[in-house]
């Protein structure tokens, strides 16, 4: 009988545990709270070591920079109330807003920015984003990161408590929007030193000065942000949600079901769910700044990629519209150049792509003619190449299969597919151990330079060891040379440089990534930025 009793007790226990108490409080119902899913988890709240989108989004919620981005991605004042740029464009003076305090009551000062920027560049911290100081050209940033000069010699200075001065080696046309990027956020030295061992590892080990404060940190599950009444612009944020909850769900299907049930207000859809939800009233598509391309290994042993006609045949024979519209169907668009669209805007405010025009065509006849030339020049009749792609997400695989069939059908080239995990793909490409590799670039700032720099021969990796003297000279002229002070000339140089790369088929652009989301139609104020960090800082619910 003992056993029977044991089994009954066990079952009863399970039932109690299973049916348990609880008020069933699904967070999405509350009128003053909004729940947004994130498909990758929070990695760190330390804005100087963060490298991923999720972390950047959450840091932007509760800290802040000298500037923020408006809906169109243009810089607006945030913690700085004004800024001045010297005539030669190399000295930026930021005036910190009066009356801005950290969440512990300490006033925010220019010293917090100096301390933060120095820490970002500290070789001991070894931040993966330290390079960005060098990118904007902060004086001595590169030397200080290598340890050749002390961090104090960097071109950042607090003239007084409210004046922060940045000195550059050369003008930088995209510095102001970057001031909204978390790597450039301030850090209070006194607080940091008091919490150094555990800094940013709990809500109490952080200081806030943004529109929200971080109020509940449930690891691997939920991250809750509550409106900050002390935010300098709080008076203008009265309509914003009182509480924003980021919910980590890696399984897109479960997240979509919870959205349909009303537990969640915004969720990103994986490609296979797009067809299922495309008629939902909350279905939204957005274009991202990520541009996918086939990287060519210019050092490949057989030497076939040295032949311009062979490279031309490859790029001319791809029907990019089919790949974007029929294969991916997630809002992705066919590439018309190396630089994506709706991404960077010139000195006259025009989209870079409009100025630079469409540079890629699909022309099977021209492709076949180029291939015939290549065969003659190389003395080769049959070509076979490998195409490396990553399996971490499904889009690259779909694209790779279609590239394979297009090259086979239009040119008769045998393509062997090499599926690898992303990290393996990166390693193989870094070691130049590949023929063709499907890869992408996520831009850090809204300027063509972030893309074009990849093909300057002094930048390592991922360009397939491409080398073009003429291109290098042009880029140097635009970035640090005679055109660097004239924004219009610099822009024209960039357009020319892109054309140069594509004429030479340095790489094969394929598509610009889009993504699909379900967003509760009552929710407004989510701002997507193709370069920079998406903003949930002014999210609202309309009833």
């Amino acid at each position, binding site marked *: 009988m003992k056993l029977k009793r044991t089994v009954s007790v066990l079952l009863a226990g399970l039932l109690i545990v299973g049916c348990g108490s609880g008020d069933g409080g699904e967070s999405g119902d509350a009128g003053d709270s909004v729940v947004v899913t994130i498909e990758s988890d929070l990695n760190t709240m330390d804005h100087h070591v963060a490298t991923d989108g999720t972390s950047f989004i959450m840091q932007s919620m509760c800290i802040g920079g000298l500037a923020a981005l408006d809906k169109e991605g243009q810089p607006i004042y945030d913690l700085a109330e004004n800024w001045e740029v010297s005539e030669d464009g190399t000295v930026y003076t930021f005036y910190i807003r009066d009356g801005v305090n950290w969440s512990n009551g300490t006033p925010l000062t220019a010293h917090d920015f100096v301390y933060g920027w120095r820490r970002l560049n500290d070789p001991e911290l070894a931040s993966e984003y330290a390079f960005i100081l060098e990118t904007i050209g902060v004086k001595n940033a590169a030397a200080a990161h290598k340890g050749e000069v002390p961090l104090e010699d960097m071109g950042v200075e607090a003239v007084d408590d409210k004046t922060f001065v940045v000195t550059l080696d050369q003008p930088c046309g995209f510095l102001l929007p970057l001031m909204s990027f978390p790597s450039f956020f301030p850090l209070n030295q006194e607080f940091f030193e008091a919490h150094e061992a555990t800094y940013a590892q709990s809500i109490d080990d952080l200081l806030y000065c943004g529109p929200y404060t971080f109020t509940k940190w449930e690891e691997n599950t939920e991250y809750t942000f509550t409106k900050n009444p002390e935010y300098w612009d709080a008076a203008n944020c009265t309509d914003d949600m009182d509480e924003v909850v980021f919910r980590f769900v890696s399984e897109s299907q*479960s997240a979509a079901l919870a959205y349909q049930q009303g537990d969640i207000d915004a969720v990103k859809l994986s490609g296979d769910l797009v067809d299922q939800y495309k008629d939902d009233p909350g279905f939204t598509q957005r274009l991202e700044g990520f541009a996918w391309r086939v990287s060519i290994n210019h050092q490949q042993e057989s030497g076939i990629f040295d032949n311009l006609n062979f490279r031309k045949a490859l790029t001319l024979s791809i029907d990019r519209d089919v790949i974007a519209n029929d294969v991916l169907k997630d809002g992705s668009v066919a590439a018309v150049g190396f630089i994506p669209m709706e991404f960077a805007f010139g000195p006259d405010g025009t989209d870079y792509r409009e100025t630079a025009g469409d540079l890629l065509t699909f022309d099977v006849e021209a492709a076949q003619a180029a291939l015939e030339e290549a065969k003659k020049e190389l003395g080769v009749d049959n070509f076979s190449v490998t195409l490396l792609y990553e399996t971490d997400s499904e889009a690259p695989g779909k694209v790779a299969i279609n590239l394979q069939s297009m090259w086979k059908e239009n040119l008769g080239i045998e393509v062997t597919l090499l599926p690898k995990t992303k990290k393996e793909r990166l390693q193989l490409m870094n070691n130049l151990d590949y023929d063709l590799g499907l890869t992408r670039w996520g831009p850090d700032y809204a300027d063509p330079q972030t893309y074009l720099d990849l093909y300057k021969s002094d930048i390592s990796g991922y360009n397939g060891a491409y080398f073009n003297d003429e291109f290098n000279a042009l880029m140097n002229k635009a970035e640090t040379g005679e055109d660097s002070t004239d924004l219009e000339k610099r822009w024209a140089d960039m357009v020319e440089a892109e054309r140069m790369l594509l004429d030479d088929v340095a790489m094969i652009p394929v598509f610009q990534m889009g993504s699909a989301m379900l967003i509760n139609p009552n929710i407004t104020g989510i701002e997507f930025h193709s370069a920079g960090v998406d903003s949930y800082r002014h999210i609202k619910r309309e009833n």
Partner: protein
Amino acid sequence: MSKYVLKRVLISILTLLAILFVLFLMLDYMPGSPFNDEKLTAAQKALLYAKYGLDQPFFIRFGKYVGAVLRGDLGFSYVLNKNKAVADMIKGPLVVSLKVGAMGMLLGTALGLLLGIAAALKHNTWVDTLCSVVSILGVSVPSYVFALLLAYFVGFKLGWIPILYSSKNVLRSFIGPMLALAMSPMASVSRFTRSEMIDVLGSDYIQLVESKGVRQNNVILKHALRNTLIPIITIMGPILVNLLTGSMVVEKVFGVPGIGTMMVTAIQSNDYNVTIACAFVYSAMYIVMMLIIDILYGIIDPRIRVAKEGS
């Protein structure tokens, strides 16, 4: 008995050490690096490797790691939760996974026993057929399919259980994952219980007990079930392995913040210390379970203990 237990414990500790070594070696050969950003220059990578001591030779790193583990220090995360102590990181998820896993296993085993006994007693009737169908389904359908079906029908269509885990309502959130995880143990246990029970019920000593006029209930519970349990305890090990691997996917479907989800992410991002810690915890759970099973054997069937002590 104590000599037997001591020997088992020692073997377990040695196995764990060997596992740690193999894990370390495998991670060393895993392609990629924790620092995968395309923008990193070689010099910066070198800086990061030096910072985390990854530039040192294998055996030095392994020696240091084992030393640290013995002091309870599992190192720091490089990617998942940058610079956070791994020991602090895995505590919460481990407890969650253990709770869900234990609930699934207990429920599955209990139901499996009941189904198996029922099927054996009603041998060759519709009850038996029904039990067989249920156990075949449970064995052949992977737990994540059950998880998806539960999430869709019971969670979404009927709205009886939450689709996603919520810390505001932990217990209700556990129902889905627990049911999904219980299927496989239930199926295995019921199959084994049924066949063992049929064998045992047909054996001479049961016929003797019955002929002595012992009541049916007592025959089953005191005599038949005890002898049925030995082979069932044997399969608890494989069941546990099934449960552990199944929990990774089931946790993902229901958004349960468990150690399975963490381990998969850690492997994908080459977060060495987190991967080793998670894999080690999984191995330790398995080995401890095997140890318990070994000891249980000794208790249930003294012949095994005697034989092993003798050898």
